[in-house]
């Protein structure tokens, strides 16, 4: 299994193929429905973004609360397709990777290809297991959104499968 670190290099991305299994380490940002809406609004208004999109990786996840003595609670992926409408704009602003579950729209697939990005699948419905790959978690923006706030995670050897590669090939097609 290939070990890949964030920030993702263009070389790493171009060498991956839909269906490849990887272990991802480094910083990623949780963002789901409402956070996407806010980030897209901020881009359109030209206001400051909560984190630099360039070469960033977003994880579609709204974690459970953190139990005492743990780094994070259960934190599996949510359905990616709900973010489809927001994704092409984020990709055009430099977003390089997305982690989630399930299929993406045609528009997202071509935006992934155009921007040489990558879509990765996390073990769906395995939030307790995934919490073991998280080494630190720090909420960084949109605190009022509760579980939908943006949290910076540091992950180590997070097992993922390439869902859509930089050539636009999909594991589901």
């Amino acid at each position: 299994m290939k070990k890949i670190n964030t920030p993702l290099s263009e070389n790493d991305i171009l060498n991956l193929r839909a269906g490849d299994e990887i272990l991802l380490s480094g910083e990623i940002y949780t963002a789901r429905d409402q956070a996407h809406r806010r980030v897209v609004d901020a881009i359109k208004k030209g206001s400051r973004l909560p984190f630099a999109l360039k070469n960033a990786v977003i994880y579609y996840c709204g974690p459970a609360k953190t139990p005492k003595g743990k780094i994070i609670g259960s934190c599996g992926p949510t359905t990616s397709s709900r973010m489809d409408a927001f994704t092409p704009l984020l990709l055009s602003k430099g977003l390089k990777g997305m982690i989630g579950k399930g299929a993406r729209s045609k528009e997202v697939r071509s935006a992934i290809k155009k921007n040489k990005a990558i879509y990765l699948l996390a073990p769906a419905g395995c939030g307790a297991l995934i919490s073991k790959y998280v080494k630190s978690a720090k909420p960084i923006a949109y605190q009022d959104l509760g579980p939908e706030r943006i949290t910076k995670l540091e992950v180590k050897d997070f097992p993922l499968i390439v869902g859509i590669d930089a050539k636009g090939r999909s594991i589901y097609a």
Partner: protein
Amino acid sequence: MKIIKAEKITKTVADLCLKANCVLRKDILRKLKSAYKQEKNSRAKKALGAIIENARIAREEKLAICQDTGLPIVFVKLGQDVRITGDFKKAVLKGIALGYQRGNFRESIIQDPLKRGKSSYKGAIIHIDIVRGNKLGLTVLPKGFGCENKSQMKMFNPTAGIEEVKKFIVNTVKSSGADACPPYVVGVGIGGSADYAGFLAKVALLKKIDTKRSSLERDLEKEIGKLGIGPMGLGGKVTCLAIKIESYPTHIAGLPVAVNISCHALRSASATL
């Protein structure tokens, strides 16, 4: 006449929330394990292995099986010879908030579906059925919304026939695809009214999945198996752990059918007071 205090109900509901969210139902786990043994597709086998390992970690470390601890659906069987002291519905809602707080579960409920706003533990769907006897039955089913979103209902013509109904059920699973955490448990409600069919589809998810199947359930399982969605949607043998059907009398002019999709983490827990 039996007297049950509201405090007792609160405590029981809180315990059920913890159990349902952290301890995967035995019938589901058994089925996952047998699916793991049967699966030959290596990617699908790995995905099933991760699901089983996830259930172990959740149980041992008291973590939520899934971060989406759902919208709690509470099924109440209230014996007609029971007298409850205090406010019953408040007691149930309090129990949910307490259980979810203790479990460090996610605050996933918003008060205004259109304006959205801040999420919390406040809210549940409560179904009450009055039955004979002096017992109070409580079941909590935390329903995740990745799969709830894929549920569908249709009002068929009364002349539609079984093949059309089967096609609708299979297509509902097909359109769930990889999105809603397969392998699925499919709950189906046939008959009643539009709202009641939806209720029955949910009730079907409470049945033990490894009990005897009807011939319609067997047929549908076979058809759904042919979709080849597989665990995590990556292909393989097991697309559906089980399909359970509940039916009810309906009107001569109609044939309501509701399909409620559940992810592989079908969670529920029950207690009788």
